Each structure stands twice: as structure tokens, then as C-alpha cells.
């Protein structure tokens, strides 16, 4: 699946770069929304079709919240370490990491603080979504289902949810949506906090 995903992604990039007029850009947004809505409906059908899903989720219980929480803490610590290595203020690294793949929001919050950091956050979160799309099948197979959810970050509730669902099971699909939702709500809370700590 990973190879197919990379091939389709590259074909898309080349098509967008060489073949399409800039005026087509808004149409891609509409197509993306429609495709995403249909996919989410199908993911729902998959979840509902497995009658044991919610029974199993009950067994996991409140511990499910630990998936987004540990993914968030892990990512932020990683961002701070990288910042230290690149001799940047550690909270700049934390702010970049706390975008969780939501590339349209975090850069907007960071922009008034620094244009350069805002661009780093934008590109980092774009890369995160691409790498998540490519590596979710691999991580799900070799490491674990919840680790694949962590890879999706905030996008586990929309763009990467169908990929997680195809490569895991319906319980993980529900965990992924909840995890993505939690991380999505954390972005507008955490990024401003880290920026304010920078003074």
C-alpha cells in the first residue's frame, strides 16, 4: 500500500505542477471536501458493521485518551530537543511541534511572532501530513495500531483517518477519530502558550 500511495502522491504533485492552471486550485478544495465526506461516511459504515466495536472500546475505557496525550507530549519533547540541536529557543521547537500536522492553523498563530518560524511550522506540518500518509501502513504493520494513530496527529480525524482504517481495525478507527479530535483542539491552545513563553 505504501508504494501505491507514494506513486499516486507523486503523480498528483507532477500533475499539479506541470498540467494544471492556477485557476483550478479552488476546485481541488471542493473535490477534497467531497471525497473526504464520502470517505468518512464509508469509514462509519465499517465501524457500525462490526458489532463488537463499542464493546471492545469499553474494555479499553478511559485509557484511550492516553493515545493523543502521549502522542502530543512525545511530539512536543521531540520538537524541543530538535530546537536545542539547531540552537533555536526550545519553545520555538515546541510551538512548531504543537501544530500536530494541522498546517493551516499553527503558522497563522506563529506569524505575528516570527515570519521565519511561521514558515518552518507551515512546512513541517505539510511534511508531517505527507509522511503520515506514506508511513501509516508501515507503522501499523510493524509497530502497532495506536502508534499509527500517533503518526496521524490532528489529521487522524480527517485526511489520514481512511488510511488508518484500511490498515488497522474498526476499534482503532474510533480511537483515531477521537485522538485526532483531541489533538485538533490542542493546537489553538498549546501553540499560543508556547509562543507567549517566548516573550
Amino acid at each position, binding site marked *: 500500500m505504501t508504494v501505491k500511495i507514494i506513486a499516486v502522491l507523486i503523480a498528483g504533485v507532477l500533475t499539479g505542477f506541470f498540467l494544471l492552471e492556477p485557476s483550478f486550485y479552488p476546485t481541488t478544495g471542493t473535490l477534497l471536501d467531497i471525497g473526504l465526506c464520502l470517505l468518512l461516511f464509508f469509514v462509519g*459504515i465499517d465501524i457500525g458493521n462490526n458489532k463488537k466495536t463499542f464493546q471492545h472500546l469499553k474494555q479499553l475505557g478511559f485509557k484511550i485518551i492516553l493515545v493523543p496525550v502521549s502522542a502530543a507530549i512525545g511530539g512536543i519533547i521531540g520538537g524541543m530537543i530538535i530546537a536545542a540541536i539547531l540552537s533555536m529557543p526550545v519553545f520555538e521547537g515546541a510551538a512548531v511541534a504543537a501544530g500536530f500536522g494541522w498546517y493551516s492553523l499553527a503558522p497563522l498563530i506563529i506569524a505575528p511572532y516570527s515570519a521565519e518560524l511561521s514558515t518552518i511550522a507551515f512546512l513541517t506540518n505539510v511534511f508531517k501530513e505527507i509522511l503520515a500518509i506514506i508511513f501509516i501502513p508501515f507503522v501499523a504493520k510493524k509497530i*502497532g495500531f*495506536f502508534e499509527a494513530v500517533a503518526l496521524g496527529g490532528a489529521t487522524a480525524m480527517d485526511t489520514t483517518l481512511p488510511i488508518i482504517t484500511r490498515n488497522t481495525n474498526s476499534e482503532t478507527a474510533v480511537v483515531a477519530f477521537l485522538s485526532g479530535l483531541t489533538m485538533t483542539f490542542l493546537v489553538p491552545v498549546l501553540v499560543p502558550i508556547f509562543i507567549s513563553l517566548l516573550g
Partner: protein
Amino acid sequence: MFNSVILYLILLVAGALLSYRGLIHIKMLKRVGSLQMFFLYMLIFIMGIRLGMNKEVLKAIGDIGFKAAVFTVGTLATSVAAVYVVSQLLFKGQERKIS
């Protein structure tokens, strides 16, 4: 953003309720997998198109591409590692067993 969260939730719950209640035809259920794959690849293709058309991304890659790449790989790795540790301690591979 808030609106799309609600919309996604409604679509997921609608799909789940319909199939839980047995209102999705068996022929349709059999096709859900391949339909998902079709729309999934369409989605990835469109996301690729948007990246290819986005001059902002291309310009930024030249400027700070390396830093962003290091942040991406670093934060994804620690994020996955943190969930791995928590999973080992609390779930012990439970998520696979229940499938």
C-alpha cells in the same frame, strides 16, 4: 474548523448507525472496501495536486526545507515512541487482540 468537525462526526455516526441497524444492503457492504480504496487514492492524488500547485510550499522548501525536514522526522519519531511506551505499559498489544 468547528463546522467541519461537526460535519465529519455526523457523517461517521450516520454511516455507523445505518450499517449497525442493517440498513446498508449486503451488496453495498461488500463494496465498501473497494469504494474506500477508490476515494482514498483519489484523495491522495488531489492532495498531491494541491501540493504541486502550491507555490508557497515550493518557495519555502528552498529556504528552510532542511530545518522543517528535521523537525518533521524528529517530532514524528518521538510521538510514535511515546505512544509505543504507553501502549507497552497500559495496553500490552490489546488493540491487536481485539481485532
